[in-house]
């Protein structure tokens, strides 16, 4: 069984993610310790919080170079959740313009409320997933996932593995590019369908040569 590390950067509902992995039979380490992170086979970057604060915290813990080495150079799989996914992009306009990890070309922009559209986009929504996406294997097409966000990811089509309709917005619900996986929704809070999706990621990690 591969070693999974949940990156603790002072943000995010790390405990919720650890609880979900525990149910799936994994004992994930919640850590910001560089040695422990280097020894892990795959990472989860959870997120509940504000973009700028998250980047500042990653910087303060000197995690940016470490993540670059492990994820981009060594190619270890990583799963970003919600804010964790948004951090993969180049920039975000949440409370000013901020630079992200820049692993995926694109940006994070605000959803604009109007008379019929309430923001944040909170609640259970259905998604349209790409047929060949390993994350959504064995998950029925009408499954729902839990979203809670005010900003959304805009990027090239080739990175997107699932979309979601909210009012007039066609939101990026999930990303996949090489060893980078991410969802805007919270699989750890989407009951059995979310747990199945996490299982699919863990299965990918188990079969991944590294």
């Amino acid at each position, binding site marked *: 069984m591969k070693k999974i590390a949940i990156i603790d950067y002072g943000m995010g509902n790390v*405990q*919720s993610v650890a609880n979900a992995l525990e149910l799936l039979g994994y004992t994930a380490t919640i850590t910001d310790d560089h040695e422990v992170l280097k020894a892990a086979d795959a990472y989860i970057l959870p997120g509940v919080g504000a973009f700028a604060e998250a980047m500042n915290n990653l910087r303060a813990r000197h995690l940016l170079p470490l993540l670059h080495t492990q994820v981009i150079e060594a190619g270890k799989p990583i799963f970003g959740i919600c804010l964790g996914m948004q951090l993969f992009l180049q920039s975000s306009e949440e409370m000013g313009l901020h630079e992200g990890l820049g692993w995926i070309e694109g940006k994070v922009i605000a959803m604009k409320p109007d008379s019929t559209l309430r923001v944040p986009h909170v609640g259970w929504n259905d998604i349209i997933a790409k047929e060949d996406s390993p994350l959504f294997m064995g998950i029925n097409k009408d499954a*729902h996932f839990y979203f809670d966000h*005010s900003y959304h990811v805009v990027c090239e089509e080739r990175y997107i593995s699932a979309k979601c309709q*909210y009012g007039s917005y066609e939101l990026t619900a999930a990303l996949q590019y090489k060893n980078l996986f991410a969802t805007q929704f919270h699989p750890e809070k989407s*009951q059995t*369908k979310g747990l199945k999706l996490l299982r699919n990621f863990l299965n990918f990690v188990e079969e991944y040569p590294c």
Partner: protein
Amino acid sequence: MLKKRLIASLVIKNGIVVQSIGFERYLPIGKPEITVDYLNQWGIDEIIMVDIDAAREGRCIDPELVKRVAKRCFVPLSVGGGITSVDQIHTLIHSGADKISLNTQAFINPSLIEEGARFFGSQCMVVSIDAKGDADGSYRAYTHGGKADTALSPAELARQIQECGAGEILINSIDRDGYKNGYDIDLIRSLLSATNLPLIALGGAKDPLCMKILLESCDVSAIAAGNYFHFVEHSATIAKAYLSRYFPDQIRLDGYSDYRDFSFDERGRIVKKEDKSLRDMLFEFHPKEVI
């Protein structure tokens, strides 16, 4: 399409879940972790847990309680009760909470909403407003467990809260709390037009019919109830099956059990199946869902 959420509101007193009646009388229900375990299996969409003793005792909701509950909760969990600082919010989120529910502090210290939103994002900050009707048909918002009058209308308070960066508003009717006489539609409508934030309605649900009337009358984002969920087996699953008949695209039905082929009475309660169909069901094979 975004679904209407069905939210269970758990009131905690002396460490256990209680039934609350008019913010005054309380009856014991049971252990929070057991309640959450059941609700999670019955396909509830979200859980809000508030410790109503905490503020009065000068502490915040117990992070250890949140930890125990979060282990069984694979839907979003909001927690509230006596939260006064960003450090407390940090501890609660690290214990497994997904959102923070503020009430009295949102009124007396609105900067806590701002600070909370800056560190944890707006989507993390839920503000609940307790409201009571006046004799002239207007409404006023109350704090301190329904005891202190803010002299503001709930709509005015909601506008201020949105300015501070809150992500959701929950409106609870003190008059209807635990009295099972249906949601206060006029009160809920007065808040819908006040902000662009998602609105959660609470207070007065007796049965699925009350929830249907709420959805017919106004465009709330979520239906919350307390007591209804505690006293009926599979309460969440049954309410969803009933509501999905009237609002087919608006209810999430991912749960394992399913009541869609049952008949309902006029209040939305399930009607017993005929003996023959019950006999047939005895031999139906239901494989366990593998994750």
